[in-house]
């Protein structure tokens, strides 16, 4: 969707008579992309569903005031990322309160998720990603899973392309080291 179509859609959303229809179009266009981005961050479907709902509630509340300094998807992607991070931090706090819960490791969550059909390699990959520092984790997920260009990532994260390339490079090496250590 180009910027002029986005602007038209946002204008329709600002009109109360057309709001629901415009939002349906936004949902149809972006829900899957945002869902998979969130799902890879939070892993379990039910959690991804909650975070996606919160993301679209924020989008609904903020869209009338959206200033269009960035693209619509960039803005929504940022909201989804923040919502997922908020969710993960809250879970981390809860996890700290319930020590040694075997089901609350990344492996435990993947195994308990009925909507996960990955093999052992994927499990290892996810465990390795989960151990990355937050910035490297985010960069790796955007590049590897969402297959975004460095330019788009720089736009979303507000970082230089060079810094992103360096982060990705470090993330790849840490993941491979993690694979080698478990072989």
């Amino acid at each position, binding site marked *: 969707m180009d910027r002029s179509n986005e602007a038209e859609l946002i204008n329709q959303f600002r009109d109360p008579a057309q709001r629901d229809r415009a939002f349906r179009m936004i*949902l149809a266009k972006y829900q899957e992309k945002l869902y*998979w981005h969130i799902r890879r961050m939070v892993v379990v*479907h039910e959690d991804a569903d909650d975070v996606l709902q919160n993301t679209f*509630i924020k989008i609904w509340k903020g869209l009338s005031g959206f200033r269009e300094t960035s693209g619509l998807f960039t803005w929504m992607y940022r909201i989804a990322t923040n919502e997922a991070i908020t969710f993960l931090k809250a879970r981390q706090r809860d996890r700290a309160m319930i020590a040694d819960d075997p089901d609350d490791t990344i492996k435990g969550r993947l195994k308990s998720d009925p*909507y*996960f059909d990955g093999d052992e390699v*994927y499990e290892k990959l996810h465990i390795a990603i989960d151990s990355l520092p937050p910035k490297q984790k985010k960069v790796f997920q955007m590049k590897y899973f969402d297959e975004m260009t460095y330019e788009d990532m720089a736009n979303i994260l507000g970082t230089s392309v060079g810094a992103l390339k360096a982060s990705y490079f470090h993330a790849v090496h840490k*993941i491979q080291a993690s694979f080698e250590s478990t072989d």
Partner: protein
Amino acid sequence: MDNNKYIWENDRFNKNPFKVPDGYFEGFPDRMLELLNQEVISAEAEKRRFIRPWMAWVSGVAAVLMLGWFGVRTYYWKPLQEVRYQENVAMFVDFYGEELHEGDLAGYIVDNKIDILKPAATEVNELIQIEPDQAEEYILESIGF
């Protein structure tokens, strides 16, 4: 042959082994819009919940101010009225000169809070038991004209 070094970089590696329940994406927009409508309704209810105590507070303050005003008015109204009558009498005295004495009509008028600026005031007529057209003459007589 795949030249990628790592297994997870292999093209055959399934990057997305996650699934969603059947019909999840088809049903999500309806579910989301229903949720948003509930959000809007609860946001309005929240606004009303916020406004109600605020309105009660404003009404309470208004009630206190009104009671205060009525209290002040009741307390000060009488003296204010008297001041007005005394002013009226002063004008009356100015008009008729120094002839008014203690116990005469002016005192009577002040004591009975009669508005003497009203020509042939009903109260005067009733109190001095004279006909309206005789009131002016009575007043003039009583002050020695």
